[in-house]
């Protein structure tokens, strides 16, 4: 088992931890760590032909996901004076069981879509799929706007795992653009959360229900 497998196992474990976690602060830290760990993935995938751009991109992604995002989110928690409970719609144990189910589904999907090129690890596709499914589940099953942002980040990390690990040649321009979009996206979400808190004195999205047919 090489370094890449080690990273991928860590990603699976962080996802499971998130699904079972009842603490908001812990969840933010787990997502930050996951982002930081994944920053190393492009470096390991490009071991043979490592260029300065790859290093810069890995460093940029690590700093943004491991440093800037948790700082932004912790600030939102402080300003909003949130209690530290996650407040899920779905219980923690059920979430965890759903996660295990998703892991199985992800590995099944991995067998259905065989990768036509040499990849660094056979586990890449299933683990990426698992992150995507976990992210979607977290967005649907959590009440708080902040937790939905965390779910979105996990989803994005899954897509990133696939992109960074499987594709050896992604144009730098696109990678930078993707990183920038995600950064601005979370930034805007942070601002909106701040406003939601100011208007409603909480950030539970189940209270956002004035608009419907």
């Amino acid at each position, binding site marked *: 088992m090489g370094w890449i497998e080690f990273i991928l196992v860590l990603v699976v474990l962080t996802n499971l931890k998130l699904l079972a976690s009842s603490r908001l602060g812990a969840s933010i830290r787990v997502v930050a760590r996951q982002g930081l760990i994944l920053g190393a993935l492009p470096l390991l995938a490009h071991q043979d032909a490592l260029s300065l751009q790859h290093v810069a991109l890995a460093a940029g992604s690590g700093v943004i996901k491991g440093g800037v995002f948790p700082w932004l989110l912790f600030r939102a928690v402080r300003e909003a004076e949130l209690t530290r409970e996650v407040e899920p719609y779905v219980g923690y144990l059920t979430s965890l069981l759903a996660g295990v189910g998703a892991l199985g589904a992800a590995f099944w999907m991995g067998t259905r879509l065989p990768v036509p*090129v040499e990849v660094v690890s056979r586990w890449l596709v299933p683990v990426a799929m698992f992150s995507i499914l976990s992210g979607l589940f977290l967005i649907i099953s959590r009440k708080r*706007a902040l937790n939905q942002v965390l779910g979105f980040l996990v989803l994005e990390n899954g*897509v990133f795992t696939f992109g960074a690990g499987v594709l050896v040649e992604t144009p730098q*321009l696109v990678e930078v653009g*993707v990183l920038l979009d995600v950064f601005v996206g979370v930034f805007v979400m942070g601002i*909106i959360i701040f406003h*939601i808190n100011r208007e409603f004195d909480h950030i539970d999205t189940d209270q956002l229900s004035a*608009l419907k047919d």
Partner: protein
Amino acid sequence: MILALLIIPALAGLLAFGLPTPKARRALLLITAAIHAGLTLACWRIAPQPILRGWLALDEAGLWFLSITSLLFLAVAVYAAGYLASESNPRSTDLEEGFLFDNVPAAVFVGCLLLFLTAMTLVTVSQHFGLQWVAIEATTLASAPLVYFHRHPRSLEATWKYLLICSVGLALALLANFFLAMAAAGNGPNSHSLMLSELVARAGELQPAWLRAAFILFLVGYGTKMGLAPLHTWLPDAHSEAPSMVSALLSGALLNCAFLGIVRAQQICVAAGCDAFAGDLLVALGLLSLGVATIFIVGQADYKRMLAYSSVEHMGLLALGTGLGGIGVLGAMLHAANHSLTKGLLFLTAGNILTRFKTKSAAHVSGLRQVAPVTGVLWLTGFLAITGLPPFGIFLSKLTILRAMFNGGHWWIATGTLLCLTLIFVGMARVVLNMTLGEPPPTTASSSPPEQPWEIGPPLVLAVIVLLLGLAIPGPLNTLLTQMTTTLGGGR
């Protein structure tokens, strides 16, 4: 030329954040919109050279959607300039619930409008799938502050839904890009390239399983942003809570950008020979969108939401036309233009109604003809145009899409579509006629301000264009449409 199309609005947008005087900002908005429209018009005469190793180029579909966006933006810019000039009071009273709220600072509003234009322009000129994704995501980010122009809880709720649902959709579309790269992988050097032209040229070598998975994700991802049912849930909220000129842009320009993303993916599927698979999916989502829109339009009490659901309906028609292929593609492209301009007309008119009656509830609006005569006529005209009555453009494009159904022998699809269209006509007629005719409420009749030129000018121009498009399609437009249909693989 392409560079100028991108850089001018981008710089103007950044400049708008810093300009201190409202007058200068409004002038900047108008001038930039005019320059953008002028450059777009110039692209019709002289085809611009591709730049950045072909990453940025203007093909037929790109030019088509760029022109729609640019024209609509110009109309909206004129309206917005007048609106901002009249709305000098920083605190406004909520029109429905009567509490006070702030607006987003005008500098941010104008800046975001221009950046939104930049992002949409980038979508139309991108020839690289990755770059196109970046641009479509940028349109979401630039327009989110616009939806939240009126800072009150309802628009906040709408903005949050818009941002989160579209972000999730676009994350899936990013995965679709990676899947597409995977489908192209293993074909020798540079096979990871996501250039549209290369993918089309070598479509036969693509791995079918990955290509199909990629198309499904594209459809889900960009379909969310385009407002195809069942992924449309953000759309009615964002369209009804955004200021009317922003709704016009969202409905007329933004949805088209996402549609272009799907069209590009479909183009590859056609070239790779799995157009039947892609077409069936598009037809299924299109029919579902039509059905959902019908259910929510009939009996809709809020006239802005009614227009929003009408957008879902027309996006469904676009998906149907594209999915059927052949002449359906031509119909869909023509329909995209007709719908954008008509919906722009309707949303701007809805803005006029909202400022006079101070309610979005259709039941509380009556006697529009007496309160604001021109607006009343425009509202009625827009209704006749959007439901596809002759001699307006939508009649022609709807007929073309229906003809594609009959040509292909899809009788059930045609019956379902006609049934939905009829029900929508009846549902909208009830609302619109009740609003236009009758006696106005006494308070509104006495206090209503006269109609300003900026309020009626832009929608009037849009109405004239939609009417002309229904009477005759000019030669250059016709040539472009035919070429586009061939390129987009209308051979099914």
